[in-house]
């Protein structure tokens, strides 16, 4: 109540000053006044009403119809007042929701955290960024007892909270797989049954599951409709799409998955990703897979982790910092042996 009087006085001071001497300072003061009024929940119709009464105070001689005209402006401003007041509650609802989501994101991160296995002949890098706060992309590494490494990458069709809930389920399902269960096709077949049973019919998951055998440097993999990645061949510096077919998880309980394999030479690379990488939408349209390869080529010399981070930064900027989809990029490089140094390393 008292505060309103102070604000009224302030407005009067600004208005009187400006009517005598129109200066930029007065206008700047108005902007500051506006900010303060909004902070203190003064409605726009209050401001119009104040303006009207000051005007008749300063110009008692104005025609009645001029005063009257403010009735109309006031009435219209009440509508804006509605919007303004709704905005205030919506904003606090939004903030509350944001806090909730932040907590949920933390839980999700704890749940989904994965360690990149430290296998000496491999240099592995991975990055995953959510478009919204909660990710519907998922990746997971397991270092198996037989010196192989499993890698999973998955993408829920859908984003945000439901995708995140679905993701948790996949994680629980993977956790309850027996320890010695590595064959990519059987893993996908098993997960497919879980998804089919537990997730509603409108939700699908694409997944790529691979297993890198260190002793023969062969990568075994199966795909459930997942965005194809690339193999990079160092000998002729060429990229090859990772071929492979398979139905999405959750479509048909009976789905069988085919298993493929590919052997890597030193310097060769496996590049896995979610469609969020290729669906980066820049001002010129979606980026082409070729453009992506050019980017990768440019930074090939970098260690894998730096490589994926650099690619992400470039694509983030290209699309004006607004990710349209969750973004996951994994690079697995078979290290180049450096003569003399290899002797120092044992175990592979």
């Amino acid at each position, binding site marked *: 109540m008292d505060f309103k009087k102070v604000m009224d006085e302030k407005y009067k001071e600004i208005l009187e000053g400006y009517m005598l001497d129109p200066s930029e300072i007065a206008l700047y003061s108005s902007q500051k006044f506006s900010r303060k009024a909004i902070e203190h929940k003064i409605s726009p119709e209050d401001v119009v*009403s104040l303006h009207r009464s000051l005007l008749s105070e300063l110009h008692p001689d104005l025609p009645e119809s001029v005063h009257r005209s403010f009735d109309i402006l*006031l009435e219209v401003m*009440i*509508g804006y007042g*509605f*919007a303004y*007041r*709704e905005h205030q*509650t*919506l904003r606090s609802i939004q903030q509350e929701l944001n806090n909730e989501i932040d907590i949920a994101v933390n839980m999700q991160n704890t749940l989904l955290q994965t360690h990149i296995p430290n296998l000496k002949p491999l240099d592995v890098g991975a990055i995953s960024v959510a478009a919204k706060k909660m990710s519907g992309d998922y990746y997971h590494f397991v270092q198996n007892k037989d010196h192989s490494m499993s890698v999973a990458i998955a993408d829920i069709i859908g984003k945000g909270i439901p995708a995140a809930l679905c993701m948790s389920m996949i994680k629980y399902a993977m956790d309850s797989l027996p320890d010695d269960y590595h064959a990519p096709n059987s893993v996908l077949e098993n997960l497919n049954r879980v998804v089919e049973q537990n997730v509603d019919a409108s939700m699908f998951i694409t997944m790529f599951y691979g297993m890198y055998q260190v002793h023969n440097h062969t990568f075994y993999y199966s795909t459930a409709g997942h965005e194809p990645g690339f193999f990079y061949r160092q000998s002729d510096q060429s990229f090859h799409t990772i071929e492979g077919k398979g139905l999405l998880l959750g479509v048909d309980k009976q789905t069988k998955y085919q298993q493929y394999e590919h052997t890597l030479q030193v310097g060769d690379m496996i590049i896995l990703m979610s469609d969020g990488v290729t669906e980066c939408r820049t001002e010129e349209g979606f980026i082409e897979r070729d453009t992506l390869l050019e980017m990768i080529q440019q930074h090939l010399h970098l260690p894998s982790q730096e490589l994926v981070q650099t690619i992400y930064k470039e694509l983030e900027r290209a699309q004006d910092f607004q990710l349209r989809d969750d973004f996951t990029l994994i690079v697995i490089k078979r290290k180049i042996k450096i003569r003399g140094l290899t002797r120092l390393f044992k175990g592979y």
Partner: protein
Amino acid sequence: MEIQSCVKIINEWDIVAARQLGRNVAKELGFGTVDQARITTAISELARNIYLYADQGQICIEKVTNQNRTGVKIISKDHGPGIPDLRKVMEDGYTTSGGLGAGLPGVKRLMDEFSIDSTVSVGTEIITVKWLR
């Protein structure tokens, strides 16, 4: 003794009549112009709801006194379809038809007291009060 004046809402002219009635009472009681306009807007919203969603209904206006306060009470009553989910209808940002921030939550925010009672296929009664400060 309280006097209650009512307007049956059948067409848009009746909305105007209800507004006029409310404005007169508010003015008589000594509400300022902004509050007059707010009370009128609230009446308008309630009357519009009757006009749009219920076949029969009326808006009643009465002066109320409570200890040492006076105020204006608006009663909106209809025999329309009723509101199946009151929690939903009182949710912010829910109405898409009512425009930004309008609808019942908007009315509730404009006024000091607000209560709603609705039974599906019987009707809805909304009572709202604004006190003179």
